């Protein structure tokens, strides 16, 4: 097993908040990994998982806002959060760059999430000690 200090994780989230438990389970895992002294190399949102990066979620006040909780975690631990560009454009998740490029009426990506290609996933896969996937369940 690798030295604790050098253990890194890439987390891939493919399930959307409120449709699936994937973002919640991933956050529990990420928090425990950080608590154990490990590093989260990056979080990659794919497929329906890109909805986690929305700045416009407004769940009832007695429910957790998972987009907000995740952005807070990313900011607190300086972890890059990347939404796959192809998944994001199909599903209506855009930053200001893409808003301009496609002449859309608004941008809705929540900082510090960024938009990039699958190459980010491939790089995480290669560099991290472990890559874990958090899919929608049933």
């Amino acid at each position, binding site marked *: 097993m690798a030295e604790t200090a050098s253990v890194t994780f890439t987390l891939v989230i493919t399930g959307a908040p409120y*449709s699936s*438990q994937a973002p919640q389970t991933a956050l*529990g895992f990420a928090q425990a990994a950080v608590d154990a002294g490990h590093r989260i190399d990056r979080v990659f949102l794919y497929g329906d998982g890109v909805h986690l990066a929305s700045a416009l979620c407004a769940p009832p006040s*007695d429910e*957790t806002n998972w987009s907000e909780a995740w952005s807070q975690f990313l900011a607190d631990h300086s972890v890059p959060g990347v939404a796959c560009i192809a998944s994001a454009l199909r599903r209506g998740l855009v930053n200001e760059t893409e808003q301009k490029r496609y002449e859309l009426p608004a941008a809705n990506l929540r900082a510090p999430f960024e938009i990039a290609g699958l190459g980010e996933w491939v790089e995480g896969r290669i560099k991290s000690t472990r890559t874990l996937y958090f899919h929608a369940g*049933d």
Partner: protein
Amino acid sequence: MSTLIMIDQPPYGAWTGREALDMAFSLAAFDQPASLLFTGAGVNWLRQAQEAGGIGQKSVEKNLSAAPIFGIEAILADRSACNTYGLDENSLIEGVTLVDADAVLLTNYDHTAFAG
């Protein structure tokens, strides 16, 4: 014009079950008769002693206990699915009626729907 709302997905992993409940409550609020039918892995909604605080959700048990207050006519559960998941009188929440979820049951309702 009675409606049967079916729930076949287990609790917590997806939101469709909660949204099915909202459909039933909404019908009742507009004085439209509504019942709930739990089948397949959906019967796990009906287990006693759910503690969902650890996953940052509200217990669906609490949601369901509001059903009679909202005016839901019946909470039905498929007998064979309950057997599959080890649910019996001792482990089911109160107010559940066991039924055989078959073609005959459906004929009692004008409208049958899933939330997703």
